[in-house]
């Protein structure tokens, strides 16, 4: 068995004396593990940092085996190390992909968006709006997309102010009535396409976090969201005070 394609490194842990087991996210093979011989060496380890873009060749005798990777660096995203917010965003994205996607299940659209999001983070661009839309897409890809296009009760497309914590559908201000306190506020940052402030991003992350937690929690992992994602929200919330 052999395939070759580009991928984003999500995690790396040492394996034995000098090797490493890496977890990558690729377009055609999804989230995939493999061994990199010598990957934990002084020469190779700096290239295998989360967020790095790699040219990957995977080989195994049988498809079910973990297999081994030949990993060549394509692009480093080391520039995020200098920005606390970008670093928090990148580790949050890697952490969410790690816990939410099934192994070897391809998500080509999510891969493309992850690529452009990480490029924006490393390039110093304004990426908060992209990150929110990326989390919405992630929810969609794991089977719980929010429907924020129209009111679930009236069908109207304007004055949408709430989202149902159960169904993930938008509700207009007028239709919410007495149910408003039981609904989640719908931040406008989740509706738009433009740049968003840190305060708006923090509000929006609280909403997407509700649905991600609900979908990803299980018996073995009662606290669903990765700590890196919690740190991103904490940093945004703190910076807006």
């Amino acid at each position, binding site marked *: 068995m052999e395939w070759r394609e580009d991928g984003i490194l999500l995690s790396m842990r040492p394996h034995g004396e000098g090797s490493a087991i890496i977890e990558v996210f690729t377009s055609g093979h999804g989230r995939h593990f493999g061994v990199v011989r010598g990957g934990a060496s002084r020469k190779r380890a700096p*290239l295998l*940092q989360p967020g790095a873009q790699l040219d990957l060749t995977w080989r195994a005798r049988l498809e079910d085996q973990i297999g081994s990777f030949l990993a060549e660096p394509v692009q*480093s995203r*080391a520039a995020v*190390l200098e920005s606390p917010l970008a*670093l928090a965003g990148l*580790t949050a994205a890697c952490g969410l992909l790690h816990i939410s996607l099934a192994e070897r299940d391809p998500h080509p659209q999510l891969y493309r968006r992850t690529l452009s999001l990480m490029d924006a983070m490393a390039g110093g661009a304004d990426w908060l709006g992209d990150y929110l839309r990326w989390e919405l897409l992630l929810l969609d890809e794991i089977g719980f997309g929010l429907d924020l296009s129209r009111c679930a009760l009236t069908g109207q497309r304007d004055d949408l102010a709430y989202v149902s914590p159960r169904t993930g559908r938008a509700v207009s201000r007028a239709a919410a009535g007495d149910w408003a306190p039981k609904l989640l506020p719908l931040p406008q940052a989740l509706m738009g396409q433009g740049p968003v402030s840190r305060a708006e991003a923090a509000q929006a992350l609280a909403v997407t976090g509700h649905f991600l937690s609900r979908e990803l929690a299980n018996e073995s992992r009662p606290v669903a969201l990765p700590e890196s994602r919690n740190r991103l929200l904490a940093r945004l919330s*703190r910076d807006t005070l």
Partner: protein
Amino acid sequence: MSGPPRDIDALIALMARLPGLGPRSARRAVLHLLKRRDAVLAPLAQVMATVALTAQDCRVCGNIGTTDLCPICDDPRRATGEICVVETVADLWAMERGGAFKGRYHVLGGTLSALDAIGPEDLRIPDLAERVRGEAVSEVILALNATVDGQTTAHYIADALAQTGVQISSLAQGVPVGGELDYLDDGTIGAALRARRKV
């Protein structure tokens, strides 16, 4: 087929657990020790027994020493008001080999890691905050690895100490001494360019 006697086999098995050694190299090392029993094996056993009894973590910085206060924390000349934060004792020893830093240290014992579920409480970050508040500290130097986990930890510590008003700095990143640009990765070249200085 008869192998080595039980005690020697146990020694080989223990040696094979050391980093860099496997069963085969452990056997070679043990054979070497057995050949030089008086010159190497006996003194080694004696020193190891002594260190096993006396080694302990410094109660202030987390360095490994033979008393509850390590020689660096015990040395009044090292009270410069600077604390250098490192990940492990190996990093502390590396800094000491350089001899450029004259202050004191704080060993975290690791870095934050979401995958390994290592949070701030698992590291000696609360102890660091306590030291900064309790001692006359003028600067905290974050000498953590230039990795995602290392820099995540550095940013977390900078946030945690922001309220104390102490100056916080980190090691520069860029071209190593003796390094050739052609062999550097693009991330290091970018960091070096951003941290350029007037000559």
